[in-house]
């Protein structure tokens, strides 16, 4: 008897839960943010947080100091590598000495840092016993196996770094920064410009600093926020080619797809494949996603991002370096041409809303996000009235 009662109670509570879920779902909008690597997806999420979230209070911003210093350290390493290449060494001896120790203390993270070998569950001891591993490949001595540097410590070397920064050899090398290989990314250029401010002991990142951070996203992240009674679930993904197969997990139940394209990519290649032009790749993946059978009924909002960089770059590198059939010569013509490339590839019965954006421009993004929200609400209403 007791069992029956509890079963009924449970069934009721499940029904209740289902009702609640259904109601919640109607009020919930799922947005999927797609696009190539470093096209500004995560930056856009940060903008959402600024305009519809907590807006990065001071303590949230200070949590990003480490990331910023990591970008700074990467940039300094790159500059110092090129000082060696262009000038041989720094002008002042103490700067040269510090440059050496700096590069040892804060190595550029890519390729240099070797993980500490942890005791693995499967016979780590065996490896030690075997005599044949005498030949440790170069650059992998025991000394380098220490823990990764704590980049916040950069601050302790403030005076030396700034002295180094003023060194004639460093200045001269920076004049040739367009020759850098690999090139400084915009985030690194920005942080180097503000180096003096960043290294003060009381430094707290500004909103702009937080927006500029370059940090690759891994896997898939969900962010939720509430605006005008609707709760938004925004899904941020990693954009590298080898990560795109994960996108499909989220195609179901999506209200709208935000597709990000880096406009400045017309003269860049992919970090995961140096043979592929970034804009070409964006076009290809856009075509693939927009024709995906799961997304037939899903609306697309296309963000042609990094407008500021594009405008700067188009002056020195003409667009027909990438598209031979481009004949125009003004910035707006170039923009229209690129926009046209995307709209040509969409299915005929589909509306794609296009925005030319600049994800680090907070004021511009405020308008764009407002427009986009209106579109989303519209889509949501349409979907609610649509017979299933």
């Amino acid at each position, binding site marked *: 008897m007791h069992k029956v009662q509890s079963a009924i109670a449970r069934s009721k509570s499940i029904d209740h839960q289902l009702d609640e879920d259904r109601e919640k779902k109607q009020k919930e909008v799922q947005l999927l943010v797609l696009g190539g690597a470093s096209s500004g997806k995560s930056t856009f999420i940060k903008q959402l947080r600024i305009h519809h979230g907590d807006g990065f209070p001071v303590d949230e911003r200070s949590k990003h100091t480490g*990331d910023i210093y*990591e970008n700074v350290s990467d940039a300094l390493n790159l500059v110092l590598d090129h000082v060696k290449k262009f000038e041989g060494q720094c002008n002042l001896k103490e700067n040269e000495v510090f440059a050496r120790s700096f590069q040892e203390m804060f190595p550029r*993270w*890519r*390729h*240099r*840092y*070797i*993980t*500490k*070998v*942890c*005791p*693995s*569950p*499967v*016979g*780590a*001891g*065996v*490896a030690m016993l*075997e005599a*044949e*591993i005498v030949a*440790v*490949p170069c650059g*992998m001595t025991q000394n380098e196996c220490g*823990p*990764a540097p704590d980049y916040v410590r950069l601050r302790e070397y403030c005076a030396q770094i700034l002295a180094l920064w003023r060194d004639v050899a460093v200045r001269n090398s920076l004049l040739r920064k367009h020759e850098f290989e690999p090139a400084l990314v915009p985030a690194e250029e920005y942080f180097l410009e503000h180096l003096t401010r960043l290294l003060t002991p009381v430094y707290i990142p500004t909103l702009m600093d937080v927006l500029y951070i370059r*940090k*690759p*996203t*891994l*896997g*898939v*992240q969900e962010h939720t926020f509430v605006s005008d009674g609707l709760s938004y679930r925004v899904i941020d993904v*990693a954009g*590298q080619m*080898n*990560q795109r*197969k*994960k996108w499909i*997990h989220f195609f179901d139940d999506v209200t709208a797809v935000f597709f990000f394209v880096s406009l400045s990519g017309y003269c860049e290649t*992919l*970090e*995961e*494949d*140096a043979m592929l032009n970034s804009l070409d790749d964006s076009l290809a993946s856009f075509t693939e996603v927009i024709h995906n059978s799961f997304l037939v009924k899903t609306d697309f909002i296309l963000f042609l991002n990094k407008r500021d960089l594009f405008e700067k770059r188009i002056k020195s590198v003409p667009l027909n370096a990438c598209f031979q059939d481009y004949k125009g010569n003004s910035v707006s013509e170039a923009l229209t041409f690129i926009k046209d490339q995307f709209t040509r590839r969409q299915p005929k019965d589909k509306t794609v809303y296009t925005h030319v954006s600049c994800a680090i421009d907070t004021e511009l993004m405020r308008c764009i996000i407002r427009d986009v929200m209106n579109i989303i609400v519209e889509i949501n209403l349409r979907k609610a009235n649509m017979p299933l």
Partner: protein
Amino acid sequence: MFYLYGGEDGEDEREDPGSGDVGSIAGRVAVVLTVTDSSCGDSDVVDTPTERRVKRWSFSLEELLADATGRHEFQMFLEKEYSSENLHFWNAVEELKGLPHSQVPSRVHTIYQQYLGPGALHEINIDGKTMEETVEAMKSPSRFTFDKAQAHIFLLMKKDSYQRFLRSNEYKALLANAVIPSTKKKFFAFGNKKKSPNPSPKSKRRGSASSMMTTDHCLAANTLTQHSYSTGNLQELDTTRSSKSSPSECTIEEQKTSNHRSLSPSSFMKKLNDLVRSENTRSNLEVPSHPAQLTADTQQSDDGGGGSSESDEPAGSSIALNIAVPNTKHNVVAPWEEDI
């Protein structure tokens, strides 16, 4: 009061919990500490790690990955974020480093096909340059073929997933549920010791297989019956357990943990290993995953009543302790202090 270990830097206390021979006193003390601190070696996955252990994971990704439980929790977290292939790859490369030389080339190819090659099922996120270098290194497969890719993945995880893991609700929950083995509570409840119904551990200490089930284990075993109903009294279980361990037992326990890893295992040890394995795959509801507790349960059932009645008492005192001395939970008290 003698504090053996009071700092927060978990670095120096990891004296390779798997090493079998602990010759010097210093080494022994170090391992005793590890055992007292984390209840069992870092190479075991436990359901509820101690608070110190969970906190140590926040020091660095290296610390997290060096701990099997930490690795496991991180793995679960990454699965939710659809990026667990990175840790799988990292693990596979670590494993590769420990393989006999003869198996290395074939394993290198397996790893390549699984994580790197075109159309790999669990393709990892590495850039073109690292990929190029790895393909180049594939021409002469060795233990170090994937080192660059591994380092790249490690840093990606460190920069992104690990930071989020530390801020995640999962990590906060781990920290909140972590057990706090407060040995200090004995100050307030030292009277308990006399009432202990368990046979003196000294009578059957060293060498015999049954010494595995001295007080701390059978206490765990006795309270296990309660835990099948509720997991609410986790903390008291652990406090009881750690309060009971005397230095000799710890040393024995530590030898046993290392024994059933590398040294000549008796048939009992084999059985134990099986138990440990099955224990690890259990659901989270079954709380204590001490290797010996199940065997202990059957063999020492005669003093079951005493054990569980005692376990009720420390709960109150441990709360009292937490209020009175909130900051001392990190200090591990020398186990022989309990005789005060």
